[in-house]
């Protein structure tokens, strides 16, 4: 999951970034409201975290602008004020949810999971493909009766694949959701992680869930004939 944090208070932005990165999100931070649109154009963000009080352009205006340009990703508003008008204005401008400062980092990550869930077909915290189950709250996976741990990047990669079951994702698409702007595209790193994931998920199973479509990308599917 790739998140764009729009927050002008640098220490707050750093704290949220740390919290989300530790929770296996790919995070970018922008401080100026007027720059949000160009950031949204440059990468496929899964969620935008938007502070209401911003220099350049306030959060409400940013939200309207994003929606007007056809961006439909979930937007979570952060507001330092708990005035009712702020919440109403925020939601009416196209935000999906709001969180009043001060907040605990767990509440933020729980809201983000809820928003991600709202987008996908599954209404539980668990994603499932065949007999592979991924718990997005605990970040643990299980295939059949065998549970196993994942590193941060492995988790993000698997989550991205499992949110699009049976769907072919190009390397660029995967990179967009798993790595932030610091990642150099064209890196072979993605193959390293796919390899590690295969080892944990498919080793010892007849049915291989993670499939490589040579030259195109990867897909996770319970249906073997899809290849």
């Amino acid at each position, binding site marked *: 999951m790739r998140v764009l944090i729009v927050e002008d208070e640098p*220490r*707050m932005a750093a704290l949220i970034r740390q*919290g989300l990165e*530790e929770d296996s999100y790919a995070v970018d931070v922008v401080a100026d409201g007027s720059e949000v649109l160009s950031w949204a154009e440059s990468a496929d963000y899964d969620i935008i975290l938007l502070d209401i009080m911003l220099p350049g352009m306030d959060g409400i205006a940013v939200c309207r602008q994003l929606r007007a340009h056809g961006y439909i990703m979930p937007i979570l508003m952060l507001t330092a004020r708990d005035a009712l008008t702020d919440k109403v204005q925020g939601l009416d401008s196209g935000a999906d949810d709001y969180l009043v*400062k001060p*907040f*605990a980092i767990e509440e933020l990550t729980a809201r983000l999971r809820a928003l991600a869930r709202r987008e996908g077909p599954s209404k539980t915290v668990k994603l499932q493909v065949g007999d592979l189950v991924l718990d997005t709250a605990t970040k643990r996976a299980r295939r059949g009766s065998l549970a196993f741990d994942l590193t941060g990047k492995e988790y993000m990669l698997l989550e991205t694949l499992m949110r699009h079951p049976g769907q072919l994702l190009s390397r660029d698409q995967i990179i967009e959701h798993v790595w932030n702007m610091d990642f150099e595209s064209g890196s072979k790193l993605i193959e390293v992680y796919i390899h590690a994931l295969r080892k944990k998920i498919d080793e010892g199973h007849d049915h291989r869930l993670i499939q490589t479509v040579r030259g195109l990308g990867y897909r996770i599917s319970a249906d073997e004939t899809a290849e």
Partner: protein
Amino acid sequence: MKLLNKLRVQLVLWTVTLEAILLLVFALILVFALQNSLSQQIDETLRLSAAQMNAVVDVALDNGVSRYEIPAEDTAALRGRGVMVWILDPSGTIVATVGEAADIPLPVSLPLPGTFADTLLSDDQAGRLFALPLQEGNRAFGTLVLATSLRSVQTFMRDVLLSLAIALPLVLMLSAAGGLFLANRALSPVASITATVRHISADDLSQRIHLNTQDDEIGQLANTFDAMLERLQNAFQRERQLTSDVSHELRTPLGLLKTQLSLARSRPREAAELLQMMRDMEDDVDRMTRLVEQLLTLARLEQRGIQHQADVDVSLVVEAVISQFQGQATAHRINLTLTCPQQVNVTVKGETEALFQVFANLVENAIKYTEPDGFVGIEIVRLWDEISVAVINSGEGIAPEHLPHLFERFYRADSARARQTGGFGLGLAIANALVQSHHGSITAASQPGHQTTFTVTLPVNT
């Protein structure tokens, strides 16, 4: 509001009552005077008629018996006036009558000769009597008793009373109606004032009465109300702004603390990492402490002013400030200088620490907004009965639209810059409050792109 409690009703009631009393007194006097005048007129008629009768009654002695003869033509005028006469001989026997006296019995009690009396001529007819001795020379030979009916007078008086009884209430009613109309007209602005003021609360002080058309007492009252509302609105707005600013300033570090704490315990962490997080949180607590302390300083100043007054040499205070900030200035490659006249008394009455804080705030600000290789200069000038201390710094200056607001609490001309430098926007407000508590003033002037000057003027201690 009860009807009787209304001012206009009270006004009308009072005037109408007063009017009623006056009219009643007037009517009484009128009736009394009329009655009096009519009585006199009747008495005069009787007296005149008696004299006439005396002249016309011809008494002839016939065998020692007097014979009374009255020529009818001589009594015509008398009868025309409605006067009746009984002529009595000395024994009291009626010997002759004139007019209606023939049909009416002589009243029982007769007045003494030469006097008048009231009587009843018949059951329903009051009358006036006059008796007069019938004389010729020194010899009395009978009595004249004259009477006239009071019926026409009574009818007239009754008509007068009836007219008054109808006219008086009518006049009073008209006057009450007129009074109510006038009172309504005069007091209708009061109703509009009441309606407006009733809708004004602390939540909405934007309403005004706006009774500009009138320059009378009520117009002045309305204008005074409007002026008061204006002041109240401004005061409330400042308070509200302050509350919102304070809560924002406190919420930022509180939000940081909350997020840091939740982050710290969200997963197992190394001791070193936790230590760093705690240091960061301590910085936030320190920042909040600074803010609360500055706010308390302001609140204290607003409440009581400065406490300890003493003779303070401004040049010494400024020198102390300069020595405190010299290191910081040098670190930023800023030339910090002092210009002070020699052998001139620059002593003011005040509090050394407070004045130190004033100049420290100004110099700290000046250094903050001066680019490296710039200068911060302090000039002390003794004017006639004032000392002025100017803090001048080179730099981009302050845009004119910000100048009037610089001394407001939490005002920041450049919010992004202020965040970097860590200020709350209270330094100048505190300096301003401190200078004012010394009966001085503080002003800011700026030439954008060139330099900015803050000038503190304090009354000299003489």
